[in-house]
């Protein structure tokens, strides 16, 4: 019991120190309270916006957008990655293009997508999906290439058909890489999405909430929005991916937790 309390206090200590520093800076620093709100104002705004349902509705829209973009990226990315890994011509054609496209920040395409697809949800989802697809393609491709030749030959020797080979050998063999790709892709989608929401003026969304709050100098609203963004991001990582990994590749003994 006492040990639990001590470790809880240890965990809380850094936040208390930072909170106190923030408070001191807000009271004594050069910024007016409007731009650098006090800790209690931020907490109060956060509680109020949660109770009003404003933060949850914005968060919901952002998450829905993230899911649609991610599903799109995963479907296209894994499909293309597998084709590239299995067929030489596809690899020769797509690999250079993807290597060139990968280091370009997805966000740089935002104005172009707005011109092509208008404002709102469609360009946001397409752009985020586009940005997230690159790591998924590259990792899936690497994974398919990394499937041990001997497993494939063994399966063929035992008379596996093409289809069986794919479902029972290639796909599970490539899965650790695919999952890594999906994880990186989701992280990228998440980082891009917030900014894309600012640029494509969607009607509801956390990025839009923060951006809109700037007009009225509502720094407390912005910080409350950022807090929710942090919580959602942490939840994505801890709840979705670590669990997925636990259930698949770790359980099959292909990776260590």
């Amino acid at each position, binding site marked *: 019991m006492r040990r639990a309390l001590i470790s809880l206090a240890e965990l809380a200590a850094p936040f208390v120190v930072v909170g106190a520093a923030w408070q001191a800076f807000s009271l004594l620093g050069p910024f007016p309270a409007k731009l650098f709100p006090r800790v209690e104002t931020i907490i109060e705004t956060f509680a109020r916006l949660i109770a009003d349902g404003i933060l949850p509705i914005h968060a919901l829209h952002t998450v829905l957008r993230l899911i649609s973009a991610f599903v799109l990226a995963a479907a296209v990315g894994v499909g293309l990655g597998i084709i590239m890994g299995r067929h030489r011509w596809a690899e020769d054609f797509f690999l250079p293009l993807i290597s060139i496209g990968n*280091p370009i920040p997805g966000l*740089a395409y935002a104005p172009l997508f707005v011109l092509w697809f208008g404002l709102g949800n469609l360009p946001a989802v397409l752009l985020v999906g586009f940005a997230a697809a690159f790591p998924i393609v590259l990792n899936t491709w690497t994974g398919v290439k990394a499937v041990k030749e001997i497993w494939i030959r063994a399966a063929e020797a035992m008379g596996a058909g093409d289809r069986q080979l794919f479902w029972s050998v290639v796909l599970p063999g490539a899965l650790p890489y695919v999952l890594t790709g999906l994880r990186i892709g989701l992280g990228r989608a998440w980082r891009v999405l917030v900014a894309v929401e600012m640029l494509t003026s969607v009607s509801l969304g956390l990025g839009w909430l923060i951006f809109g709050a700037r007009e009225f100098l509502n720094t407390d609203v912005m910080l409350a929005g950022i807090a929710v963004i942090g919580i959602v*991001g942490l939840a994505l990582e801890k709840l979705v991916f670590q669990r997925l990994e636990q259930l698949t590749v770790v359980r099959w003994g292909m990776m260590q937790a």
Partner: protein
Amino acid sequence: MKVKSRGRVILGAVISVGLACLIWEGFAQSGVFPRALAPSIVVIGSALGRMLVDGAMLRHTSYTLYRVVSGFVLAGLLGVPLGILMGRFRRVERFFLPLVSVLMPIPSLAWVPVFILWFGLGNAATIALVFYAASFPVIFNTWTGVRSVNRLWIRSAEAMGANEKVLFQKVVLPGALPFVITGFRQAFARAWIAVVGGEMIAATSWGLGWVIFDSKEFLNTDIMLASLAIIGVVGLGFERLIFQTLERRTVARWGMVKAVAG
């Protein structure tokens, strides 16, 4: 896996880029989008050439580089020492790790509006943004690197009478270096995204992100695509020329990791 020669790789890349250009050209000519929205390759090329010749592109690129490099260097100056301290001293780790884990999943671009209010439009806000984006991968990887230095190396150095300073310079730092370099790489990739996004939102008057965003107003799709090409080339250049060289000169030469081909 068969290793292809460098020449073959480049030739293959040229062919597939050429093919992709042809497909784009067909798409641009097909009239799905109006000409202003999907310009032909020739128009994009001439926009790129014009901007390269009159120096506008050089100026945009140097502004962007100035911002990204300043933010990145600041992040390195903070991140490496902090990561090392966290890896060496339990107390420092206990204090900073929760903060880092909480701040890391927040996308840097979410801070743009706040940074604009605090630092005003322009360089300071963008540099602060790059700094924020780049710090966490550096801190996190340095910390991991220091902790993963083989215990045996430290003990044997100590047994041979190395003091804290020598231990640090000869064992801990080189041992952690592969991770630190990985951290720099990830940090640069994030910084590059942050600088482009930051320039779009914290609009100044120069910079590759800004020029793309500004061209939207005038439907200058050719300028947008030309700037996108430069963003891609500079990003690839950093990865290939700077980080891979750094890796080859240090950790790969010392035999700690295999050099990445290409």
